[in-house]
């Protein structure tokens, strides 16, 4: 009785318990990301207009990220670039997470032959350096957005697929699955009603945690010149362009776009961690 009171009191001191606090933080993080994404959509082409009367301005109140050698506003370009990155990252990691879930379940539920074949496939995908595989796929698709999306989507599923496989293997050996089978339920029914609900949290967390990898690879490929066309202000392209002007002392061209990209990646990482604590049944009620 005393103990319960003490727990209650410590929870009420902050106003919320940890669960509510995590939910609020997650919504806040998601809000920032969606905000940047929407802001990027509303930035039209005229906002990034070339204006030689204001070229090469250092960061100031009027232009917080400065302007480049063509007088384009770097803050607007950066937000637009982040918006593109968020879009590419979301689509690619969603496809990748779905792939990973299907392959992971197939490995765990299928025959032994299937399992070792999938293990071999995972080794194959991981055997070629990731960036090199992305370059090859981008090359096969003739560069551009299609190659970028395909490449990132089909190469990021390996880690999550292994996780899902391990999870499903564990669930499969549970007693209630055996009972369900004995009661005459089909494999499909068990998959839908017993296994998928357990894999769903892994899927959501895996999806969000895939995002940082996807966005980092997107910017790396764009930086190397394989991603979006050069007139698009993707972060990788902005940074690749800035290289020519660094020796001239225009440090802000590289510094601010890069640091905001790092911040977005950290935001997604934090969001993933928060979702993990919420969805994991062991830590959800702490």
């Amino acid at each position: 009785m005393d103990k319960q009171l003490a727990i209650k009191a410590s929870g009420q001191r902050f106003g919320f318990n940890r669960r509510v606090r995590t939910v609020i933080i997650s919504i806040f993080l998601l809000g920032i990301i969606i905000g940047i994404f929407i802001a990027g959509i509303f930035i039209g082409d005229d906002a990034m207009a070339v204006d030689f009367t204001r070229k090469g301005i250092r960061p100031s109140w009027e232009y917080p990220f400065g302007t480049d050698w063509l007088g384009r506003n770097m803050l607007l370009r950066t937000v637009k670039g982040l918006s593109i990155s968020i879009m590419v990252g979301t689509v690619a990691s969603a496809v990748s997470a779905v792939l990973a879930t299907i392959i992971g379940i197939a490995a765990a539920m299928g025959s032994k032959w299937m399992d070792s074949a999938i293990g071999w496939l995972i080794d194959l995908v991981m055997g070629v350096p990731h960036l090199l595989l992305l370059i090859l796929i981008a090359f096969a698709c003739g560069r551009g957005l299609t190659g970028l999306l395909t490449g990132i989507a089909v190469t990021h599923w390996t880690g999550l697929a292994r996780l899902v496989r391990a999870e499903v293997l564990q669930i499969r050996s549970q007693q209630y699955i055996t009972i369900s089978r004995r009661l005459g339920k089909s494999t499909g029914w068990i998959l839908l009603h017993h296994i998928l609900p357990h894999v769903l949290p892994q899927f959501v967390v895996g999806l969000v945690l895939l995002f940082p990898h996807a966005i980092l690879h997107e910017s790396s490929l764009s930086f190397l010149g394989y991603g979006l066309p050069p007139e698009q202000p993707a972060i990788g392209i902005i940074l690749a362009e800035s290289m020519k002007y660094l020796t001239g002392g225009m440090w802000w061209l590289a510094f601010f776009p890069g640091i905001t990209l790092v911040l977005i990646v950290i935001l997604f990482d934090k969001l993933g961690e928060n979702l993990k604590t919420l969805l994991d049944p062991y830590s959800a009620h702490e």
Partner: protein
Amino acid sequence: MKRKRLINISKAIGKYLFRVLTLLLATSVVAFVLASLSPIDPVQQYVMGAGAVSMEQREAISEYWGLNAPPTERYLNWLSAILRGDMGVSILYRQPVAYIIADRFINTFALMMTSWILSGIIGFTLGCIMGIWRGKWVDSIIKRVCLVLCSVPTFWLGLVFLLIFSVWLGWFPIGFSSPIGIADSDVSIWQRLYHLALPALTLSFISFANVAMHTRQKLVDVLESDYVLFARARGEDTWTIMKRHGFRNTLLPAITLQFASFAELFGGSVLAENVFSYPGLGSAVSAAGLNSDVPLLLGITLFSALFVFSGNFIANIIYGVVDPRIGEERPHGQAIGD
């Protein structure tokens, strides 16, 4: 007993080598298919700089290259040529691919090994510091730095280093593996190291976080075990405990992890070499892709896969053979620490 273990080990190695062979073969198929899927016409790419070329000449080139043959035949021709040691001629550099790879791999190898050793030492040391003072402010600061470093793109870190050390402080050169205007044989080892420093530093900063976090985890497990508690009760100080228990239990996993990280190292070197215009395999492969130099692109892909599989192979051997506790029975053929 010892004999049985030896047999087990050689069996495992044989099995793994077979797996690597099938994987390499599959890599060559996948790479070949991807390269031939490209909508870019190789003949067009080849004759681009040559001025006027008639349709008959184009036809002659594609006939000479065997482009009119069915894909399986083309693949088999290519594979048998590679097995005979002929990797073709690079369209971009107009030199044999094998020669370019050999020439540039020396540069890339120097870069990767420097950063590999550097990141191993930094990562292991930081991991030990975090483990010993776990839960203290040192631990949380280093942990935070490691987590942030995981979110930093390699090429941006390279740009920041370039800004700070080359442009602002002027300590290091902007690019290239040797000074411009000096014959290759006259370049001293110090000049080479001087040009290697920044790219190597960038690469090692990207990869030490992984080792550090892993070592920390292992060390915390060790230091909170019963035998360390007993050692403390006997009156051993922290340094003695680290010497007797800490290092022995954490060094091997750290080294294994380092060997298994060859793939990431290679990917990172592509970016670092492009930032610092360092003439290695990484800058060659991105140039090959951008200029549709298929022989070079395929050659480097196969070579890098071979490199990664050797790293995983060494990791497996260390994990399975060197560690006396393991080696009896173990599921084979899995890469460690991915």
